[in-house]
């Protein structure tokens, strides 16, 4: 996505290089933000703020990690700060077991065997409570470790693992309800 040469040009303060980085990554950043905050306008605000942090942090980025991984962390951190400011962070930390969330079917279409339909998965993900969605998006979509997610959320690695477990279970319930019924028989 972003080459070493482009990053080096950014570090030299070349505005054209910054522009190129934004052009190449903006949809990824926006999509990740959208998956975390769940609202298009909020996702654009998060993306704008995330890029400011990227520009500020680029001088210190030593390329020990992949740029994309570093970028995902920044977007995750920005999204959490944004939710905190909007006073929606309580929902991120809330215990999903206590929430009244209907296990709505992401899709009424019958999903055969073990294959997951992508559109249904996207809908199921969006239907998850934010406390579960945040964790499963950061871990299973963007590859952050449970420890890193814990740091972003201000909670323990163990608590993240519990949420991840619940999130996967809930997704499976939404996506394979018909098969589960069949297995029980």
């Amino acid at each position, binding site marked *: 996505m972003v080459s070493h040469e482009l990053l080096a040009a950014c570090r030299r*303060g070349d505005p054209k290089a910054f522009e190129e980085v934004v052009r190449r990554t*903006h*949809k990824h950043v*926006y999509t990740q933000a959208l998956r975390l905050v769940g609202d298009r306008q909020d996702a*654009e605000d998060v993306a704008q703020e995330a890029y400011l942090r990227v520009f500020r942090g680029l001088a*210190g980025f030593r390329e020990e990690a992949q740029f994309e991984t570093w970028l995902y962390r920044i977007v995750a951190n920005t999204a959490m700060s944004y939710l905190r400011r909007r006073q929606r962070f309580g929902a991120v930390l809330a215990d999903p077991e206590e929430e009244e969330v209907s296990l709505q079917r992401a899709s009424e279409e019958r999903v055969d*065997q073990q294959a997951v339909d992508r559109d249904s998965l996207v809908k199921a993900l969006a239907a998850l409570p934010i406390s579960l969605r945040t964790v499963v998006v950061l871990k*299973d979509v963007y590859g952050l470790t449970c420890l890193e997610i814990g740091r972003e959320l201000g909670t323990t690695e163990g608590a993240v693992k519990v949420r991840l*477990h619940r999130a996967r279970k809930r997704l499976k319930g939404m996506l394979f309800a018909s098969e589960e019924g069949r*297995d029980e028989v």
Partner: protein
Amino acid sequence: MRCEEVRPLLPDLAEGIPREAGEVEVHLATCAACSAELARYRSIILELSALREVLAEPSDGFLARLLSQIPESSWRALVQRVASDERLHFAVFSLGGAVVGGAAIGLLWWRARRGLGAIASGASAASETA
């Protein structure tokens, strides 16, 4: 192991982190329902990782808005880089020291020349009156 004991382990097991084969694997090898359940979790995790490349489309003008904030940001980044780089600090202090030192020497030299000039002109005036 029984299905009720194995089922709660499946969401984490599906991640595929290598582990020693044990009772769970023995159960999975013989229980079609539990192995189907594991396959569902695996399929979800696999598809979730593929979502990274499935991109949402932002609103019109989003990219332009992002790009419009770049010049200011890049300058700020550059200033911060200078402010945080120890080698640059050292270079700036060294240069500053050299400039101050040079100015001090120049000033002393100028005053010394002025003093010598005054003495010389005083001496020539004295000789003229004599």
